[in-house]
């Protein structure tokens, strides 16, 4: 039986661990925290997962919270004007629902499932020295811990990393008591609120440790009015600041947010990071090789909500590459081609996400505006969050956008 060591118990590490385990591999998973510590700890992300990513979980039979998590049927975009009005305000309908399960719930549960199914779970914050030693005794070592010392083994790929500093300051609050948008009282939807030149507020219906909730997520341009969370440690203070900014810039969202409460003591998260693509193969001091997984090798800004989707897609792609390789050696060439196969799809996510971080060009503003008049455009944009490769067809090139909008307008009339 082939032995695989996976470091990191997030979406990608655990999904991959459960995946290779189900194919009969002997798997050791190393996590720096126990399931209980994760469950009682701080929120880790916003994780709105769309259909393709959710299907990967269903394929492995690990969609344990599907019946409890709100079904997100729409994705809306609103743009605020300096006078507080909403010149752009629409919602696109997803072909299949999305869901967001708090990773504290999911990762803790998946770790227990992994152990109950016979996986070896070792609680340890892994250092390079550990891996140097352990790589001798495993057929394959995968690094899926996107933060910490191990990431330094993977060099930055400058040609694929246009930014060298964080493009947004991030502040997340999980809350109970967010009212629905009055215009769609029965629709669960992700809402992307754009404050031009300042930042974005994203709201996501989710499931947390205490049941259904909503996530309020500010993305602030560095140095701008939403970049005020550094040094704010108290969860209540983070929520208060979040709500102050909503009241000031997005009055329609404040109307439904005024009575919210934090879900628990660990329900907030702040920080920032620079988007980066790294080389996928890490070399240990003694010459052993390790393969980076998901955000270890491709870390995009969360503005497009793709982190957990990319993690699920990466885990599914790597699983195929591992099983198809049979008994052959997991060498450098295999590692590179395994990453290249994932990058085939992941490159579209990176290109689109990086594009949204900059000021929107004229043709993109036109596209977002037209989606308010043409529901088919809104729907296509919304479903692009499930399959970002589709943006290649109409989003980046002004001529293609114009051609698509002309076609969509005539189809409607």
């Amino acid at each position, binding site marked *: 039986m082939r032995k695989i060591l996976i470091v990191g118990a997030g979406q990608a590490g655990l999904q991959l661990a459960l995946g290779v385990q189900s194919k009969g591999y002997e798997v050791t998973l190393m996590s720096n925290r126990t399931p209980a510590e994760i469950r009682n700890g701080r929120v880790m992300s916003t994780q709105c997962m769309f259909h393709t990513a959710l299907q990967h979980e269903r394929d492995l039979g690990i969609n344990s919270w599907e019946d409890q998590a709100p079904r997100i049927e729409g994705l809306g975009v609103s743009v605020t004007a300096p006078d507080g009005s909403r010149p752009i305000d629409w919602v696109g309908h997803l072909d299949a629902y999305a869901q967001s399960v708090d990773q504290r719930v999911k990762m803790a549960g998946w770790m227990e499932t992994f*152990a109950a199914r016979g996986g070896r779970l070792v*609680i340890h914050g892994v250092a390079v020295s550990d891996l140097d030693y352990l790589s*001798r005794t495993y057929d394959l070592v995968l690094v899926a811990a996107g933060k910490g010392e191990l990431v330094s083994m993977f060099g930055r790929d400058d040609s694929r990393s246009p930014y060298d500093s964080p493009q947004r300051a991030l502040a997340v609050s999980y809350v109970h008591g967010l009212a629905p948008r009055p215009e769609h009282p029965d629709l669960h939807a992700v809402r992307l609120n754009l404050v031009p030149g300042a930042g974005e507020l994203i709201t996501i219906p989710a499931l947390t440790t205490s049941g259904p909730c909503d996530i309020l997520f500010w993305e602030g341009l560095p140095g701008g009015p939403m970049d005020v969370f550094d040094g704010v440690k108290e969860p209540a203070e983070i929520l208060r600041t979040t709500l102050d900014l909503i009241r000031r810039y997005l009055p329609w969202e404040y109307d439904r947010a005024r009575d919210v409460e934090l879900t628990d003591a660990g329900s907030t998260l702040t920080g920032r990071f620079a988007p980066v693509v790294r080389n996928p193969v890490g070399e240990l001091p003694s010459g*052993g090789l390790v393969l980076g997984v998901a955000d270890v090798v491709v870390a995009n800004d969360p503005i497009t909500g793709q982190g957990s989707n990319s993690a699920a897609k990466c885990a599914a792609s790597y699983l195929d590459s591992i099983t198809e390789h049979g008994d052959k050696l997991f060498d450098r060439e295999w590692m590179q081609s395994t990453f290249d196969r994932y990058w085939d799809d992941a490159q579209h996510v990176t290109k689109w996400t990086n594009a949204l971080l900059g000021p929107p060009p004229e043709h993109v503003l036109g596209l977002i505006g037209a989606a308010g008049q043409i529901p088919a455009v809104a729907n296509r944009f919304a479903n692009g969050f499930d399959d970002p490769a589709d943006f290649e067809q109409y989003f980046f090139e002004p001529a293609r956008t114009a051609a698509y909008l002309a076609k969509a307008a005539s189809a409607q009339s």
Partner: protein
Amino acid sequence: MPRHASPVSDGVAAAALPTRGAGRRSARVRPYALTGGRTQFGHVLLVETFVAAIDGPEDRLEILSGDWAERVMPEMRAIVELCRRMRSVAEISALLRMPLGVVRVLLSDLADQGRIRVYGTGHAPGAPDHALLERVLSGLRRL
């Protein structure tokens, strides 16, 4: 104590570290059923967790020269030898000069195989035992 003293205090030869690639295949161990002291969610091996070998006199011979000894890494044999008396995870790491993460993985492996038993920390959660901390500290000093 000099850092490279070869016999450690209990007379267990410090395992020579094998070179990369050598015996790569033979390093594999047979898959075992999930018994041998596992808790529901695996062994949580804190630095102060106590472990000890589960073996009788006849097993001792096997450890040194039998089938099992030929199949596993010398590090695994060294751990089992060391654990003939109760040891903390920190002590094992210190005495064998092995990274803590490696010790944790190998101990998990040995526990799954029923070669060692995991005894816990000897104190209730949140109430550290003074004598225990002394032992862990003395283990760490030998690093």
